């Protein structure tokens, strides 16, 4: 994002940014959603599911993870930034659904457990 002297001055003085800057930022965000036709709720759901899938293979930093839509030149891209703590298994042996549950380390199943819990919660209602 481009910065001008005025932007810096405004930041230093704790003033509101110029309204054109606000307009630009708001437009970029709303257009990314308009163009992809994804509602914020759907995006959030997709984000959760992406985290779940990735968490099967590598241990990711859930706090630092980020999935967002970005646009440039009328192209909208889904950008996922998922910091990896460490891989769970050697890459040569990709986990299959069947044997996965047996030899997992406790930390990495966090996401899976959470989803199990929520499922259990839903069914008990």
């Amino acid at each position, binding site marked *: 994002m*481009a*910065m*001008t*002297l*005025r932007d810096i*001055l405004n930041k230093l003085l704790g003033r509101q940014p*110029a*309204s*054109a*800057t606000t*307009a*630009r930022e*708001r*437009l*970029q965000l*709303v*257009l990314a959603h*308009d*163009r992809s036709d994804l509602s914020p709720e759907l995006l959030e759901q997709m984000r959760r599911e992406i985290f779940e899938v990735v968490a099967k293979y590598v241990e990711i930093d859930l706090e630092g993870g980020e999935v967002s839509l970005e646009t440039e*030149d*009328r192209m909208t891209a889904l950008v996922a930034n998922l910091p990896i703590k460490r891989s769970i298994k050697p890459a040569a042996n990709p986990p299959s659904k069947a044997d996965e549950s047996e030899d997992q380390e406790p930390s990495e199943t966090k996401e899976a457990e959470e989803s199990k819990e929520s499922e259990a919660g839903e069914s008990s209602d």
Partner: protein
Amino acid sequence: MAPTTRTILICSGKGGVGKTTLTANLGIALGRQGIRTVVLDADFGLRNLDLLLGLENRIVYTAQEVLAESCRLDQALVKHKQEPNLALLPAGNPRMLEWLKPEDMQRIASMLADQFDYVLIDCPAGIEDGFKNAVAAAKEAIVVTTPEVSAVRDADRVIGLLNTQGLSPIQLVLNRVRPKMMANQEMLAADDVTDILALPLLGLLLEDEQVIVSTNRGEPLTLTKSNSPAARGYANIARRLQGEDVPLMDPAKEGRGLRAKLWQLMQTKIF
């Protein structure tokens, strides 16, 4: 037969951003260059092109009678008194919208293309049937927008639809620019809008009170000897359409005092 006829849709999505005014002024400006031009009012629901051109009292037949074959095309065309190279094909009755199809608009556009070098189609606001009919008839497009979030957002929707219909080129006209507000960063800059919409800028038009005066009279600015900022802007757009290399006006350079220079320094993007 004129195989090189350019059929250009003038659209915006949002209403009230200056489509019809641009159509009228471009029509006159092109006509003054000796180019045979016709403006087609495709806004059947809320027609106004006749009013801006001062031709509202001279309409006998409309596109409706032409399509129904109850009159010939040349009977429906209204020639402009002061600019004989320009003609208007008026919009028909709003009830036409009930049966009008994209093929009907295509038929009208190809009839006009036989007789004129430029066919400018004044598109209705919105993205419903009226818009779709007008798009079907055009080959290229000019999207008009103002530096406001709502107008830019609607323009983006329209550009997406134009792209899927294969119109090309699609060019942008930024209307109602206020240089002072832009310099103070209280209005989206031209670069902001072209970056966001990813379209080449065909022209930039300053907010100009003379536009209101000229619409009051039914005499487009390009028809009069006016040298107002908008009059120059319209004329420049017509010249660029004709392939002439006319430099774009830089609103930031409108002010030349020390204060303006200081402001410019403050707006320079440093990283």
